[in-house]
């Protein structure tokens, strides 16, 4: 449990570091960017790039809020990231390069989904594997089998009763079991 608590603290330190990096890398006066400026700059881009901007901004997390993308948040850091995305798009960078830029700088932490490579492939394949094997299990257990014996090899109550009756009948006839 202490480990968990420490993890939470570690995240906070990481957050502080990240904030610092933002200040150092952009060195902008605080509060320089407002949502309205971003929307104006966005309108200046071509409609294709606006679409790209949306797709990219949805995949980057807001550093200071929980569960939201930079697109959904107006926190100062989110606005700076959005500004950076627009700048990169204006420089005709591809979405891949832009994502690479952010992950190089701030780590995978900035992404909202695990990348589909290396160990993190597990997060994507895990659910698919579970679904596949669960279905296989169901098929083997219910649809392939055509007997009235339960999965643990125990016969049902009725089957046991029939056998008992038969054996009682045999006993009455004088057969020793």
């Amino acid at each position, binding site marked *: *449990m202490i480990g*968990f*608590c420490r*993890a*939470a603290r*570690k*995240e906070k330190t*990481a957050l502080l570091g990240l904030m610092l990096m933002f200040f150092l890398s952009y060195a902008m006066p605080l509060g320089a960017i*407002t*949502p*309205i400026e*971003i*929307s104006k700059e966005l309108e200046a881009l071509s409609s294709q790039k606006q679409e790209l901007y949306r797709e990219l901004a*949805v*995949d980057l*997390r807001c550093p200071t809020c*929980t*569960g*939201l*993308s930079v697109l*959904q*948040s*107006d926190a100062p850091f989110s606005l700076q990231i959005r500004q950076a995305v627009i700048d990169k798009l204006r420089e005709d960078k591809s979405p891949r390069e832009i994502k690479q830029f952010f992950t190089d700088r701030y*780590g*995978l*932490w900035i*992404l*909202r*989904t*695990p990348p589909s490579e290396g*160990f*993190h492939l597990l*997060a994507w394949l*895990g*659910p698919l594997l*579970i*679904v596949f094997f*669960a*279905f296989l299990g*169901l098929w083997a257990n*219910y*649809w392939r089998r055509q007997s*009235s014996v*339960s999965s*643990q090899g*125990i*016969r*049902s*109550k*009725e*089957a046991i009763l029939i056998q008992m009756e038969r054996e009682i009948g045999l006993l009455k006839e004088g057969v020793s079991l």
Partner: protein
Amino acid sequence: MLADFAYFLLLLCLFSSIYGALASFAAAKYRHLRLFRSAKMASFATLGLALLAAGLLWGLLLSRDFSVAYVHKISSSDLPFTYTLAAFWASLEGSHFLWTLLLAVYTAIAQASYAKDNEVIMPYVSGTLQAILAWMFYLAVFHSDPFAPLFPAPLEGNGLNPLLQNPYMTFHPPSLFTGYTSLAIPAAYGVAALFYGDINEGWLKSVRRWTLYAWSFLTVGIFLGGRWAYIELGWAGYWAWDPVENSSFLPWLLSTALLHSLLVQDRLGHLKRLSIVLAFFAFFFSFFGTFITRSGVISSVHSFAQSPIGPNYLIFLGALMVLFVCLYALRAQALLPADSEKVWGFSKESALLITQFLLLSFAAIVFIGTLYPIISESITGLRFNIQAPYFNAFAPYLGLAFVLAIGVGNLLSYQSGKIRGGAKAYLWSLLLAIAPTFVFAYFGELSRSQGFVLGIQLLGIFLCFWTLFCLLIDLLVRLSFVRWQVSGFLSRNVSYLGSFLAHIGVLVAVLGFLGNYRGLDKTVTLKHGESTELFGYRFSFDRVETRHVENMTLFEAPLSVHKDGQYIHTVTPARAKYPTSKELFHEVGLYSEFWHDIYGVLADFDKEAGKSATFELHINPTVRLVWLSLYLMVGGSLLCLLDGLRGFRRREL
């Protein structure tokens, strides 16, 4: 003084529930009726004492007794009456106490109202429930005491988190907790069936009722939370796949699965063990959710409820799991399926099994996504949170599979491949669904999406309408079987009608989700007298006005909305200033038409003259369908609950 007395009451509750648990299990072991009666009385005593303690907490909140740490933490003198009452469950200690109180209430009700059939297993049920209750009281007494004193007593409290000062937040926690706590009862019945080694007819009836009850409240609770996020957080969405949202969704999925496995059990006497496992896991995940909220293992929007109570929950969850697995391993083979012929072919029971498969797959994905940050950190050392896009990559396909399963499954019959009304029903629905799909696509403004997304949306909408027509044709066919004796049919098939409504509710919800897959938004600054246009709507701004409502100061920026030159409505996005916080909180301006929500957020405004303001305007299609689906689903489930026939019927199990 009063607080000390209330703490003493909690201590008494702890002792009486420990006694109740021990006495119940002893009564079960030695078949001692009077000992069991005494254990039952202990649970009523616990309830009485807990209610008294809750009354005292409310009294302390209303009298603003800041010498109690909890009262100081969550209330202040400016808080209005209703929010003072709701402050009871605004933070960790109080919400834990509310949970415990509700569990005491349902433990007592379950003891007072069992079916005659269940007499033999009741000691086990009672013992299980009171053991859980004892654990909750232990936590309340030793780890999260709502009556802890604060010395010296401050003159003013910290105040309630402004985000929680919202009518939906008043009802969201009690409703959700009602669902969680009443899920303990099916789980207790499951444990009792394992101990006893058999399932009788009354078991099914009781478990079905309690699961339906819990399911209704869970659904209401989840929707209230979504609605709160929609109107309070200002990001124009209602579901963010936040870890805590997910962990309220897990018990919902599992209890839905339980309802469907009970159906097979009722008709065919199969899936008994699955029902028990599902009942246990539904309950288990309701506690798992609390663990996530409380411990801060995973960061979430609900982190205002964090505390060192986390490790205790982990111990509890671990112990629960170990005990249940042991009990199941030792006793489960005693529960035999009925010896029914011709099962699991192409038939309704197979369709229900597929439903289980889909629901549990969904639960598994949500579970993996929620816990992945911990897995990833422990293996690669890298911590990041999985957020919405991950879940959105899986959810649409599962959603469509659900829709398909509802359509196909409802028309099938048990133990035979016969389709009611014949395969024609499916084909006719294909034809009938085409027109509504286009109507919906037109009004839901699908023209804004393109490519793959548009394809999924169209396919989904078509499938929803296809399923809707399948269900309607099925109803007509059933009515024609009884020669259109409508009232007679309905009075004898109340639970069919209930499930019909609930399934339509699911379809309406899926249609809603598909429609608002992508909204339209715009950020704009308007000066006095200016106006802007978005998607055919014209928004005109006049000035920012200041208004005082109860404890808050509102800065309102009314926008009058016109469409085609006609005045429609005035939406009033605002910012609220509370005396206990420096921050300005969002009050969303919202106007709902049937097809669209006009949703305005006041991002910034000129604080001196109030002559200009920056708005974020959203047009969200089909959100209203999502809220509508709540009424259908809960109405349907309540109808099922009212059905007197189902469950009373004697069946060979």
